[in-house]
């Protein structure tokens, strides 16, 4: 006997009740539960749906789906880190590397012309901050709206958002501080070069994470899950 549509819905609800909020993970668990319930019915047709479900859920152990969810998050995190790194490295090939070097050089020249690192670099950092906050806001808002409309959350999106590069944010701030400490009234060539390099690399990292990777991951999810395409 095959499960009916409303029983499948009940399984989705059951996974939600047991702290699996994400549709990509829910659907795999729902299929697993559905298969095992159907097999149980072959052996014992008298079992009710709920009885069979409870018996099958017990097989996941006392932590239920928690282990599966936790491990999934961990591995997805690793996967994103690797993809981000891969695309980041791509910038260090021609012709993108010329663009990167060009931006570094332009920033350095500007600093030399103005004979200033601290205020200039602080402004650049500020601009990076404002632009990236705006981009992040746009992405997360679109996610929230989609969640609301479809009732589906995607673990891959959540993991992509929490993948954390913010500790690195302190680095450029330190550079700017450093340039103040070094500079006094004098402009320092070493600090200017170092700062320009770090700021451009930092901007690039944010760009890759929010513009390139997010798009790539959405495309990949769309390829795997037709549902994701539809709800986009």
């Amino acid at each position, binding site marked *: 006997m*095959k*499960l*009916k*549509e409303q029983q*499948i819905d009940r399984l989705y609800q059951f996974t939600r009740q047991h702290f699996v909020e994400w549709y990509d993970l829910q*659907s*795999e*668990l*729902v*299929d*697993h539960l*559905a*298969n*095992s319930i159907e*097999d149980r019915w072959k052996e014992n047709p008298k079992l009710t749906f709920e009885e069979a479900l409870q018996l099958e859920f017990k*097989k*996941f*152990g006392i*932590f239920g789906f928690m*282990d*599966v969810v936790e*491990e*999934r998050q961990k*591995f*997805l995190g*690793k*996967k994103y880190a690797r993809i981000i790194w891969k695309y980041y490295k791509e910038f260090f090939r021609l012709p993108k590397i010329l663009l990167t070097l060009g931006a570094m050089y332009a920033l350095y020249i500007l600093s030399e012309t103005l004979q200033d690192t601290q205020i200039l670099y602080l402004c650049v950092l500020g601009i990076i901050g404002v632009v990236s906050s705006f981009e992040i806001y746009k992405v997360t808002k679109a996610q929230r709206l989609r969640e609301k409309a479809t009732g589906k959350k995607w673990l891959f999106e959540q993991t992509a958002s929490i993948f954390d590069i913010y500790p690195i944010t302190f680095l450029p701030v330190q550079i700017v501080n450093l340039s103040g400490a070094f500079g006094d009234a004098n402009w320092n060539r070493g600090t200017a070069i170092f700062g320009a390099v770090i700021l451009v690399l930092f901007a690039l990292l944010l760009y890759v994470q929010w513009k390139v990777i997010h798009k790539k991951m959405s495309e990949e999810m769309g390829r*795997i*899950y*037709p*549902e994701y395409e539809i709800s986009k």
Partner: protein
Amino acid sequence: MKNSQLYKGSLNTIIMKLLGENGRMYGYEITQKVKEITKGELNITEGALYPALHKLEAEELLDVEVEKVDNRLRKYYKLTESGQTETVNRLAELEEFIKNMQSIVNPKLSY
């Protein structure tokens, strides 16, 4: 899983070997196949299977396809190219391990 400590280290290899033989499979199918081959002796638990599958997927040894079957979504796993190469390596390692264990456990049989 029966004797879980002994089997644990080989779970990934078991999964990859099965996928190598059967093309693409979904999670539940893998547990049933293992049960069938070992005549019920080896029972892969759900709590071990999915983390293992997801880990192999994250390592890009497995690729996934999702299809709608019987009014629900089914996620199939299959070996990627690097997964196929890795399966050969891991099976060779496992065989080596079995051989060594055999020499230790039953020295008379080894040659």
